[in-house]
């Protein structure tokens, strides 16, 4: 057979659009695309007509107008003369702040509880189970409200810290003379530097050079510590004996930043009662505290489950094998169990971070002015720009979420176990 004659080229028939695998998917996609576009066009058209009927336009110009309202917790300069855009930034930073601190605390709680739940101690195990079940099965909103209620209903007013003019004794006293938990806020000392380096203008906001210096010192310490560790590993590789590094680690990780702090004349400014309220320190509002604690405790319960499952997923065989080789429990944990458990734990952990960030929008329940409270709340209401505000707010939340899950994907790809 010299040449198998190819089948004569089939002429195109209309039915092939439906029945030929090559064209079929195209047909379906075109059909779906048209449906989608029609739907989108319908929505947009409705929106335009509705806006026209209401005499409104679609315009983000309001972001540059004066906001006029005050925000008590602000991480960047803001007064009621600032613009709505700036108020949005303040709200966004508040969201990020509570989300970040929440993730931090939730992780600590979750890891602690997760490990304790695995402990052989019956009592502790039961307590931790109770905690986890309680928090997981009751709506977050209830926890936020309850914790807020504990703060406002069960703590003294700032006035209670004032000495009675007759007896000279206050009915409440501050913890260590530094911290006062009141029904409005928790007053804590304010870190200040007597030898200030000044402020750096970053356009959108200013940053304190002292803080930068301390962070730089911490990073430097961390980096040096890594060098020390690497050196220890080198020595170990060469001689088999690993030199003790805990003291140098301590010195570098803690000592260095402390030295810089001292050098900058770091001290605490203690809050004192003046007029109606404590001044001098930092007043962390109860709405923030309640939101933060509730988010941390709630998410912590989920993280505890993740941690527990992660450790349990590393089969008993792994630690037995390590024991059988003569490795001690501590080393087994750090060399064998943790590196594996982390791979299992981190992806769901990050999606919990994502949930926490999204749940921080429940700030609305306690009047914490986050992104939803400023942009999606007061600004929306004062300007009447529902469409713009809600869309912008969604866009920002979406961006945050995508950034977090993007980070997760990168991590997943980098630690994936090699398989056949």
């Amino acid at each position, binding site marked *: 057979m010299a040449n198998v004659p190819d089948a004569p080229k089939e002429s195109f028939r209309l039915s092939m659009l439906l029945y030929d695998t090559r064209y079929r998917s195209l047909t379906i996609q075109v059909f779906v695309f048209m449906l989608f576009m029609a739907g989108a066009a319908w929505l947009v058209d409705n929106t335009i007509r509705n806006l026209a009927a209401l005499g409104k336009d679609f315009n983000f110009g309001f972001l540059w107008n004066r906001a006029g309202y005050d925000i008590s917790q602000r991480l960047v300069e803001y007064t009621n003369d600032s613009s709505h855009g700036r108020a949005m930034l303040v709200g966004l930073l508040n969201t990020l702040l509570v989300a970040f601190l929440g993730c931090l605390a939730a992780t600590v709680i979750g890891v602690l509880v997760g490990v304790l739940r695995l402990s052989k101690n019956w*009592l502790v195990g039961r307590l931790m189970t109770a905690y986890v079940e309680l928090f997981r*099965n009751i709506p977050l909103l209830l926890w936020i409200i309850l914790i807020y209620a504990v703060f406002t209903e069960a703590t003294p007013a700032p006035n209670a810290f004032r000495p009675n003019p007759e007896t000279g004794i206050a009915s409440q006293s501050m913890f260590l003379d530094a911290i006062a938990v009141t029904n409005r806020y928790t007053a804590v000392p304010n870190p200040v530097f007597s030898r200030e380096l000044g402020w750096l203008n970053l356009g959108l906001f200013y940053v304190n050079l002292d803080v930068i210096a301390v962070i730089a010192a911490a990073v430097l310490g961390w980096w040096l510590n890594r060098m020390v560790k690497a050196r220890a590993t080198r020595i170990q590789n060469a001689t088999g004996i690993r030199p003790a590094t805990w003291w140098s680690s301590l010195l570098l990780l803690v000592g260095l930043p402390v030295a810089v702090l001292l050098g900058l004349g770091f001290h605490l400014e203690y809050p004192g009662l003046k007029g109606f309220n404590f001044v001098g320190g930092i007043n962390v509002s109860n709405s923030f505290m309640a939101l933060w604690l509730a988010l941390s405790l709630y998410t912590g319960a989920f993280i505890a489950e993740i941690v527990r499952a992660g450790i349990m997923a590393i089969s008993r065989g792994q630690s037995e094998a390590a024991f059988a080789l003569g490795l001690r429990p501590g080393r087994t944990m750090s060399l064998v169990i943790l590196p594996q458990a982390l791979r299992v734990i981190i992806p769901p952990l990050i999606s919990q971070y994502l949930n926490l960030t999204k749940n921080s929008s429940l700030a609305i329940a306690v009047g914490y002015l986050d992104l939803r409270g400023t942009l999606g709340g007061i600004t929306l209401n004062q300007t009447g720009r529902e469409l713009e505000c809600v869309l912008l707010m969604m866009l920002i939340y979406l961006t945050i979420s995508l950034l977090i*899950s993007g980070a997760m994907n990168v991590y997943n790809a980098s630690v994936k176990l090699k398989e056949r």
Partner: protein
Amino acid sequence: MSDTPAQTVPFVRDTMLPPAPPPASQAGALRWLRENLLSGPLNIALTLLGIGAVWYLLQGIVPWLAHSVWSADNLTQCRQIITDRWGEGATGACWAVIRERWTQFLFGFYPQHLYWRPTLAFALLFVALAPVLFARVPKKLLWFSVAYPFVAFWLLWGGSLFLPLTVAAGFGLGWAAFALLHRFGTIPAVAAAVLLPVLWWLLFAGDLSRDLTGLVGREVPFWLEQVRSDKFGGFVLAITIGVAGIALSLPLGIMLALGRQSDMFLIKTLAVSFIEFIRGVPLITLLFTASLLLNYFLPPGTTFDIILRVIIMVTLFAAAYIAEVIRGGLAALPRGQYEAADALGLDYWKAQRLIILPQALKISIPGIVSTFIGMFKDTTLVVFVGLLDPLKGITDAVRASTDWKGIYWEPYIFVGAIFFIFNFAMSRYSMHLERRLKTDHRQE
């Protein structure tokens, strides 16, 4: 040197040893204590800490609970009773508020003489769920499951029987169109099955149901007393939204999951974008969209019920999560199942409907239950769009009355306890399912 040293005498046991009881250290309460509470210094410290924590908590709560008052007309009276009984300065729980208002927590402002309707709807829910959850229930009951949404709607909102009937007829129409057109190919059949009911609902359903209602009048078998959405509240509202959300999000979630698995670029992209978008924004913003923006997106002049709008948004929200759950279920199926279906000549839809989805859904039930738990908890957020959810909406309403102004913990504890019981039961059930699926997913 011998290969076997002399010492290894061949050995045979003539009489088997009976099991002996374990030594004292291995049994009894002592061992339990030693092993579970006091093994090692760390454990002892933990035990002490644990006892401390429990003690601290109980100390705060027990006296308060012990001083419970179950009957009083208002808060002042209640406080007075506590002072009278347990002395000046004693604090106690005023459960009287729950005793007086518990129906509101459960039913919101639903008319009292109609309480039987949501109750019946709730009871029927279990009947409708039975064929899904228990394999042994006769499959005929599935027809009831299909009819249940319409029955429940009618029971809850009342009004004319013909409204749910005509809506259901739309689905019937779609199904009939699909069955009739199927021989001409799947795509036209699907298109017809979607378009026909939509046309029916938009053009005929409303008038027909009105005419029929006019015809037979407002008599009992065709008409139930109407209950407006603003009367809904409390757990009736939460369960209505939760169940409707899950039920509606299932088909949507399945479509999304299949879309995400599709190898058609556009469809996959659309599915992924939708899922990621919904999962990337807080539910609150979606609820705000429902209450603030939906009217912008609909033709001028359309208004519809806020509960319905919330259900739509919650459905979209849950669908994205359900889609991910089902995707997991689909991924867990061995490729062989797809291939066997192909090899038998089943087309894509038949293979999905008869082979793939029944299995994938079954694997996904635990995930669906957890999604439901999450959603049930999230129904409390509807308070922010002005609905009377049990947690904040109703408690605020109760507290707004002069009688109970100032009461705080009791309503929250009550609502929290109910949520806990519901969710804990469901999560235990789903764990049980998970275990069962693990062992007998290949056997029934």
